[in-house]
């Protein structure tokens, strides 16, 4: 309980400081002669806090921000205007939060197109409503404010707050919710890329918005911002896009306030307006792009997850088919261990104990125990569920594992196996379990294809070689019934089966696993009967980056 309270205090101190700084920043964003700034970030901070807080604690957020508001502006303006600002801002942010609760759905992640669109609509509609209640608007309406017309005040207050909601709130919200945690979860290469992206963004931004009037006149100058912004949106999702937009917007305000960059125009009011419109217009497509890409990535991940689950289900089914053979395989060492142990126990009961014989027996028992354990660990490996673990492996070791797991099946089918491995084979990158599944499937299929062949003709040849410069190839050749003539590829169709109790998924899954590894799997009939399956996998460090194997997290 003490810890929870400390966390609550820390959060509210952070909120107070952020809100205070946001108000000071918002006041600082007013150019020399303008009363209304480019962006009012304080409301964005309050909105983020409300969105991240349960309704029962909203009063605390409102209290803390009100106090911070007084601290930030108190003294410079009359007390009634401070009270009005606090009331208006609170009403506006609570209203926006309720609207988002109702229509966008929580949490606000901006990872779907729907949420981005609803958020954008709310970010315009609520500031427009809000500006009708602000002092600046009402005073201009009553002709008491000399700087603006009522329409002007309405437009500017709306845009100031909309800019805050669109360009500041997402950054605060997404970083508060995910940002820091996600950073620690990322791979080093992603962090390097993010650093490079931010460096490019800052470099280009500093050049574009920090140039003198000669270069600033170049019509294409603002387009220079697009590549780094697109980089952020495409590669780093909503967090990246919103952070990049916020950063360059800040740079643009900083530059323009110092009379640098392309937004330096005749009047300051025009500068403010063009800055707001530029960033608002750019924000929607970028955030939408980030959301679309995120949605696609999620769909791809879900599909991959389903593929993994399907692969696991078929492994379980295969293990079920092999269970008789596996039990046989376990019973052999168990039989040997039991008979050895009981023989030893009987030897020890004799008057003259033959210690050498007992020692020999114990030695054998240890070996046989290890043999049984290896059957179990192979089976456990095969039945492992979860995300594929991509690592550097040798195809020959996968083949040996598959032969160990399929040994009893091969023995019972009376098949003679001839494995052949070329010397010094390069290694491949893949998931050992899924590749084992592919190879075991080919071996079991071959044994079944030869079940009607005469005992002396049941030969299974496994040959691993390097194929060209880029691949390792495993050939699995049998002397069985062969593939259906003219339709050798049909065996890879889901639910195509020639076995009475087969699901017809084994080869379909095997091919999808191979494809996910950037390889190829195909079959053909041998000239002298039987079939040969070819499994080709790319050699490690030979990938061109587009194999899906490297995209999985």
């Amino acid at each position, binding site marked *: 309980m003490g810890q929870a309270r400390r966390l609550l205090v820390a959060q509210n101190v952070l909120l107070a400081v952020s809100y205070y700084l946001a108000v000071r920043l918002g006041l600082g964003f007013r150019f020399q002669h303008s009363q209304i700034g480019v962006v009012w970030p304080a409301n964005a901070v309050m909105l983020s806090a409300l969105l991240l807080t349960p309704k029962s604690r909203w009063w605390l957020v409102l209290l803390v921000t009100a106090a911070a508001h007084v601290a930030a502006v108190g003294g410079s303006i009359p007390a009634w205007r401070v009270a009005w600002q606090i009331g208006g801002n609170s009403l506006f942010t609570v209203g926006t939060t309720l609207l988002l609760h109702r229509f966008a759905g929580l949490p606000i992640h901006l990872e779907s197109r729907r949420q981005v669109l609803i958020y954008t609509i709310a970010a315009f509609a609520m500031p427009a409503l809000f500006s009708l209640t602000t002092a600046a608007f009402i005073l201009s309406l009553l002709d008491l404010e000399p700087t603006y017309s009522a329409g002007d005040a309405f437009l500017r207050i709306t845009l100031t707050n909309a800019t805050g909601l669109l360009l500041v709130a997402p950054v605060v919200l997404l970083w508060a919710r995910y940002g820091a945690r996600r950073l620690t979860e990322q791979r080093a290469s992603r962090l390097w890329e993010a650093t490079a992206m931010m460096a490019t963004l800052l470099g280009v931004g500093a050049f574009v918005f920090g140039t003198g009037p000669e270069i600033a006149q170049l019509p294409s100058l603002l387009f220079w911002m697009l590549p780094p912004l697109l980089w952020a949106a495409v590669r780093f999702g909503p967090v990246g896009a919103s952070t990049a937009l916020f950063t360059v917007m800040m740079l643009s305000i900083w530059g323009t306030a110092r009379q640098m960059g392309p937004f330096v125009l005749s009047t300051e009011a025009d500068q403010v307006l063009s800055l707001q419109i530029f960033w608002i217009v750019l924000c929607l497509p970028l955030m939408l792009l980030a959301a679309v890409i995120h949605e696609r990535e999620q769909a791809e991940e879900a599909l991959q997850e389903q593929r993994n689950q399907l692969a696991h289900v078929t492994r379980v089914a295969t293990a079920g088919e092999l269970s008789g053979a596996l039990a046989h395989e376990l019973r*052999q060492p168990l039989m040997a261990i*039991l*008979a050895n142990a009981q023989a030893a126990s009987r030897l020890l009961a004799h008057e003259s104990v033959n210690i050498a014989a007992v020692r020999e027996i114990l030695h054998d028992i240890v*070996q046989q125990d290890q043999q049984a354990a290896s059957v179990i660990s192979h089976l456990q490996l095969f039945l492992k569920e979860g995300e594929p673990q991509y690592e550097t492996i040798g195809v020959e070791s996968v083949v040996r594992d598959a032969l160990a797991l399929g040994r009893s099946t091969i023995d019972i089918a009376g098949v003679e196996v001839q494995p052949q491995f070329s010397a010094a084979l390069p290694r491949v990158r893949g998931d050992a379990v899924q590749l084992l599944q592919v190879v075991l499937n080919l071996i079991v299929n071959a044994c079944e294809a030869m079940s009607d062949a005469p005992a002396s003709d049941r030969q299974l040849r496994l040959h691993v070689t390097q194929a060209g410069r880029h691949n390792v190839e495993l050939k699995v050749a049998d002397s069985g019934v062969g593939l259906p003539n003219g339709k050798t590829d049909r065996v890879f169709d889901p639910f195509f089966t020639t076995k009475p109790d087969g699901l017809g998924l084994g080869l379909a899954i095997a091919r999808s696993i191979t494809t996910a590894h950037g390889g190829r799997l195909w079959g053909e009939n041998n000239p002298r009967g039987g079939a040969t399956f070819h499994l080709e996998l790319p050699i490690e460090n030979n990938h061109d980056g587009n194999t899906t194997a490297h995209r999985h997290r």
Partner: protein
Amino acid sequence: MTETRPLIAIVDDEESVRVALRRLCSASGLEARAFASAHQLFESLDQARPDCLVLDVHMPGLNGLETQLWLRERGIHIPSIMITGRHDETMRSRSIAAGACAYLCKPVDANVLIGAIDTAIRESHANISLS
């Protein structure tokens, strides 16, 4: 009591099982020989006729049942005990029908196996005395 020890022939393609069963029989006071296949057993029959066979059911070449039938066709009657790593009811009834004295599932307990061997040898001696 200078009675010769009964001779047991063990046929199993799995070396570890074959060796362990031979040791168990020896430690239990039986004379035991082990063979990797039925053909090796057949070749040995000229030198010594075992009193009992312990046959693995699943073997490459002739399996346990086929070995039993091969001997019977040639009029060689040796009591046999079948041991198997795979429980298979059809194979069990066919083996018993072909004259197997017992059909045991691996791992087989020593008392059960030696008991079955003793019973098989005793019954075959009784049959011989009867005839």
